[in-house]
């Protein structure tokens, strides 16, 4: 009886092309999802508010974001501010910052005057009332839940100096709101 000898193919080369295709698609997905606008948002823990409206900024509203945030902890095991790391209230003003578009403004008269003039310049790009020179640009204040109110008040004052009146206060919705159908 004649047997057919089977020759094992030794040089098996995996076809990389479908994998490269998939990798490209994945890369494209993650690149498009990387929201660059988040760079103006500092890391904060917002206060929870049950009756706040869901934040959906209108396209083209050109909203200004001002953050009131604490120093970032470099090492979670050895925090610079143990009170803040434990979720308590940090009373060291030097640890708190007001920042806008990645730029920090000191909590001094000069720093706050700079913030006011910067907001004034930004507000001028969309004047709603030319007579009173009032800006139509909205401004959202994103403050950490443990931030002292005086910092938020200074941002409100700077908004008044910059003639911006459309002020919004950022808050977080409770977890149960996440599961609610639209």
């Amino acid at each position, binding site marked *: 009886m004649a047997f057919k000898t089977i020759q094992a193919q030794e040089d098996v080369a995996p076809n990389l092309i479908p994998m490269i295709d998939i990798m490209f698609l*994945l890369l494209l997905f993650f690149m498009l*999802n990387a929201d660059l606008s988040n760079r103006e948002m500092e890391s904060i823990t917002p206060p929870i508010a049950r*009756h*706040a409206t869901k934040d959906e900024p209108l396209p083209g509203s050109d909203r200004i974001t001002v953050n009131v945030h604490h120093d970032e902890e470099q090492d979670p095991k050895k925090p610079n501010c143990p009170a803040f790391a434990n979720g308590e209230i940090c009373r060291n003003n030097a640890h708190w910052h007001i920042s806008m578009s990645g730029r920090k403004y000191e909590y001094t008269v000069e720093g706050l005057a700079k913030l006011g003039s910067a907001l004034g310049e930004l507000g001028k790009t969309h004047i709603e009332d030319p007579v*009173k020179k009032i800006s139509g640009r909205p401004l959202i204040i994103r403050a950490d839940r*443990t931030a002292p109110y005086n910092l938020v*008040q200074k941002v409100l004052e700077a908004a008044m100096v910059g003639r911006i009146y459309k002020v919004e206060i950022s808050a977080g*919705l409770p977890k149960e709101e996440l599961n609610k159908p639209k």
Partner: protein
Amino acid sequence: MAGGGNQEENPVAINVVAMVDIIFCLCLFFMCSLKFKPLDAKFESWLPTDVGNSGAPKNDVIDEIRIVMSWDQQKNQLQRIFGQNNPILNTPEGDLKLKSLIQDSYKTFKARGVPNVPLILDVGGLVPWKFVVDVVDIGKDAGMQKIQFGMGTQVK
């Protein structure tokens, strides 16, 4: 897409391993930098555009609902006063009491023909922001439409 093609058409073999390495690294980078957008919310708190320093109020009865919030540094706790002298504890029961006081007050003002009465929050500088937002939230829950932040003039 990357495309196939047989080897006879493309006699020059390209080593794609290096490219795959780089794409893997890029993929890893963007995966790690991906932040899921948190569910943000907001309150609108428009600043006044036409009032400001307008002197003493003309009415004998001031049309406002005022809550004073301050921080007791010795006891390290929040103090809330509704109206003239009605202390409200910072507890869930206190929150309910505050809501009912705001609602009752708002009803009274509406009955007097002042539906746009503002809820004014007079907050001390040391009060943590979360307590302020809590009261804003209670005010919204009580049906208040106009919530304002009080600001004092600096003493020279």
